[in-house]
C-alpha cells in the first residue's frame, strides 16, 4: 500500500519539482520566475491540443514519445522511493531498467531521424554519442554497487541492511559515486553545462532539437518522460545520501522529498553560475565521472576481502 501511494505521489509531484529549478534560476537572475505550478498548466494546455504530423514521417515518429515516457515510468516502478519498497523488484532489474531507458532514447532518436530534418539528425547524433559515454559511468556504478552490496536490484541496493549509504562504512567511495552520478544526471537530463534546456538556438541544442517536431499530447508525453527521468536520478542520489533512517513512512517521505528538492535547487544553482561547455569539451566532462567511479571500484578491490 505504501509502495503504491509512494509511486502515485512521485508521479503527481514530478512536474512540480522542475519548476523549483526555474524558480532558483529566476532568483539568481533577480526575476520572479514562472509560478510553481507552471508545468501542470503546460501539461493541461498540451493535452488539450491536437498533434500535427508531417507527411514525411512514419509510425516511428509517433512511437517515440510513447516509448520514451513509458520507459521513464518503468524506472519509478522499480525504484524504492521515499523509504517504501518498490512496486516491482527482481534480481538484476537495474540492468533491464537502464537498458529500457536506452530503449526509450533509441526511439526518441529514431523519431528525430524520421523527420529527416538536418537539425534533428545533428541533435540525435550528439545525444547518441554523449549518452553512450554516460552509460559507461552508469555501469561502472552498478559494478561498484554489486561489489558493495552483492545484489543487482534497486530494492536491495537501498534496503535497510545495505551498505550503500553515506552513513555506512563506505562513505569515501560513495562520495565519489555521488559526484559521478550527479554529473550523469546533468548529462542524461540535458542540463547545463552539457545542454541548455532553455535555449532557442537549434544549432546548439542536443535534446531539445530532437523534439522540435512533436506537438500537443506527444510533446506532453515527452515532457512527462523527462520529468520522471529527472526525478528518478535525483531519487537515486537522495537514496545514496540517506543520512537518517526513519521508521515512520511519513517522516521518511518528508525527509526524502526535502533532499530531492534540495538537489533540484542545486541544479538550478549550477545552471545560474556556470556557462555551457563548448561542444567539444562535453565528452571530457562526461568521462570525468567514469574516471571517478573506476577509481572507486579499484579501491574496493582492496577494501572488500
Amino acid at each position, binding site marked *: 500500500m505504501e509502495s503504491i501511494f509512494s509511486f502515485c505521489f512521485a508521479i503527481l509531484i514530478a512536474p512540480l519539482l522542475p519548476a523549483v529549478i526555474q524558480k532558483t534560476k529566476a532568483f*539568481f*537572475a533577480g526575476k520572479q520566475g514562472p509560478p510553481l505550478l507552471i508545468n501542470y498548466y503546460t501539461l493541461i494546455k498540451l493535452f488539450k491540443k491536437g498533434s500535427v504530423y508531417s507527411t514525411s514521417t512514419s509510425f516511428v515518429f509517433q512511437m517515440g514519445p510513447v516509448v520514451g515516457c513509458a520507459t521513464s515510468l518503468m524506472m519509478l516502478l522499480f525504484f524504492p522511493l521515499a523509504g517504501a519498497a518498490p512496486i516491482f523488484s527482481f534480481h538484476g532489474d537495474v540492468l533491464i531498467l537502464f537498458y529500457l531507458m536506452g530503449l526509450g532514447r533509441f526511439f526518441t532518436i529514431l523519431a528525430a531521424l524520421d523527420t529527416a530534418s538536418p537539425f534533428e539528425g545533428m541533435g540525435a547524433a550528439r545525444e547518441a554519442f554523449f549518452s553512450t559515454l554516460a552509460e559507461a559511468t552508469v555501469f561502472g556504478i552498478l559494478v561498484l554497487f554489486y561489489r558493495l552490496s552483492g545484489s543487482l536490484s534497486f530494492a536491495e541496493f537501498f534496503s535497510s541492511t545495505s551498505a550503500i549509504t553515506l552513513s555506512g562504512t563506505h562513505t569515501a567511495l560513495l562520495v565519489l559515486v555521488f559526484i559521478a552520478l550527479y554529473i550523469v544526471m546533468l548529462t542524461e537530463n540535458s542540463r547545463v553545462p552539457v545542454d541548455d534546456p*532553455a535555449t532557442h538556438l537549434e544549432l*546548439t541544442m542536443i535534446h531539445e532539437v530532437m523534439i522540435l517536431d512533436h506537438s500537443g499530447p506527444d510533446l506532453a508525453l515527452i515532457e512527462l518522460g523527462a520529468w520522471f527521468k529527472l526525478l528518478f536520478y535525483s531519487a537515486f542520489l537522495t537514496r545514496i545520501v540517506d543520512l537518517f533512517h526513519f521508521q515512520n513512512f511519513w517522516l521518511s517521505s518528508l525527509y526524502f522529498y526535502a533532499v530531492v528538492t534540495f538537489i533540484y535547487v542545486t541544479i538550478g544553482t549550477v*545552471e545560474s553560475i556556470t556557462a*555551457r*561547455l*563548448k561542444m*567539444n*569539451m562535453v565528452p571530457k566532462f562526461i568521462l570525468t565521472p567514469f574516471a571517478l567511479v573506476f577509481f572507486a571500484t579499484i579501491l574496493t578491490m582492496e577494501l572488500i576481502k
Partner: protein
Amino acid sequence: MDKLLHIQNNEKISRADIPHLPFPAFRQQLLECAAAGGQIVQFFAYEDHGIYKLIAVMRTDKLYVGSCDAPDSFASLTVESEKFHMFEREIGEQYGLKAEGHPWLKMVRYHPNYSGKKDVFGNDYNQEIPGNYPYFTVEGETVHEVAVGPVHAGIIEPGHFRFQCCGERVFHLEIQLGYQHRGIEKLLQTVPMKRLPIIAETIAGDTTIGHGLCQAQAIEALADIQVDRGAKIVRTIALELERIANHIGDMGALSIDVAFNPPAAFFGRIRGEYLNLSQILGGNRFGRGLVRVGGVTLVMGEEQKKLLRDKLDELTPEVEHVGKLIFSAPSVNGRFDQTGTVTQENAEKIGLVGYAGRASGLEYDARVSFPTECYGELPVVSALKTVGDVRSRGRIRYNEVINSTRLIYTLLDTKQEAKPYAPQEVQLAPNSFVVSINEGWRGEVSHCILTDEKGAILRYKVKDPSFHNWTGLALSLRDEGISDFPLCNKSFNLSYCGFDL
C-alpha cells in the same frame, strides 16, 4: 593614388572637380590605394544622362574620391584585392555591369537590375530566393549540409545560412541575404525632401541615429546649412547613447547564448534604462525623430541634463559590476576564448569595420579618423584588441560602453544650449557630391549623395557597416564547431535590413 581627389568628410564637392579617369587608370588608382592599406568607403555605379559611371571613395587616413565611365564589363578589381568583392557584386546587381574574372560573382540582394541590361548572374527573378542559385558545396561521404533560415527561431530577421560540415566542424558557411530588400536607395531618390529623414531612420532600426545623422550631415553639406553647437552636442550624446544601449543588449545576449543567465537578465534591464535616457533626450526610446536637417528637434535643457547625469551615475557602477560578472567567469571565458577568430590579415582583406575590426587589430574608428559633430574636440579612446575572437569583440564593446559614458559626461558638462528647431527650406546645390561618414554603434555608416543640374538627388547610396562585416562572420566560422555559430553570430550582431536596404 595621386590622381584621386583628396576630400573631407561631409565636404560639398562639385562633381566637375572629381577626377574622371579612363577605366584602366581608375582601376590602377584604386588598386594602388588598396595595396597601400586603403579601404573602400563607397564604390558604386550611377546613371547620368544615360551614361553609366563608377565612383569610388577610398580611405587611408584621408578620404579620396575618383570616378570613371563604366564599361559594360570590366576587369574585376577583386582579382587583385579582396576588399572590392562585395562592391563589385553590388554594382553587377544594381546596374548589370559585369566584373570579369570576379572569383565569386553572385547576387547580393536578389533583385533585377535598374538598367534593364542582361542579368549578370543569370537569375530568374520570378522564382523566390534562393531560386535556382547553386550554393557552394563541399563533396564527400562524411560532409553534410545544414540549411538554416530564412525563418528562424526567436525574433531575428530573415537570412539564409548554408553550412558545409564534417560532423560538428564547419568547413564553410555561405550567407544569403536580401529577404528584406525594400529598395531604400531608389526610394530616397524619389520621395519629397521632408520624408528623407523618416526613411533614413528606418534603414536599420537599431542604427536610427547613425543613419539619421549621416543623412542630415550630407544634406546640410549640400545645402550649406550650419548647425549650432548645442544641437551638435545633443546629436553626439544621442549617438553615444545608441551605442551604449546596443552594446549592453548584445553583451547580455552573448551571455545567454552560453547559458549564463544572470548577466543577461541584468543587462536586459539596464539596456532598457539607457533606452529611456534616449527618450529623455529625444522623446523616443530608439532615437526616432530627433535628428533633422539643421539641428535637433528637441532642446536639451538643464532638467534633461540633470536627469541624464543622475541616471548615468546610477547605471555606470551597475554596468561595471555586471561586466565583471561576465568577463571574469571561467566557464564563460572558456566559451568566448578562441571562438570565432578572424585574423588581422583576413580582417584587413575584407575590410572589417567597427568593433569587429577593432577586435581583430584594425584601429579604424571614424570618430577619430573623420570626426563629425563634437568628436573633434572629444578625447575618444577606441578600444583595440588583436585576437579577433568572441571574447575580444565582447571586451571591446564593454570598453566602448565605459568610454562612451565618459564622453557623455564631458558633453553634459558643456554649457551650451541648442536653439529651438525650426524646419527650413532645403535647396541642394546642383551638380554636387558629398560623402558622410559616422561611427555608428556597429561601425562605419556612410551615405553618399550626388545631385543633378537642378539640385535634385541623382543617386543616393547607403552603406551600413554590415555590408563589410557579414563576410567576417562567414570567415569566423571556418573550422569552428557548428554549435558555436549562434555565439559568433551574436558577437558580430549584424543588421539584415541594413544590408538588404
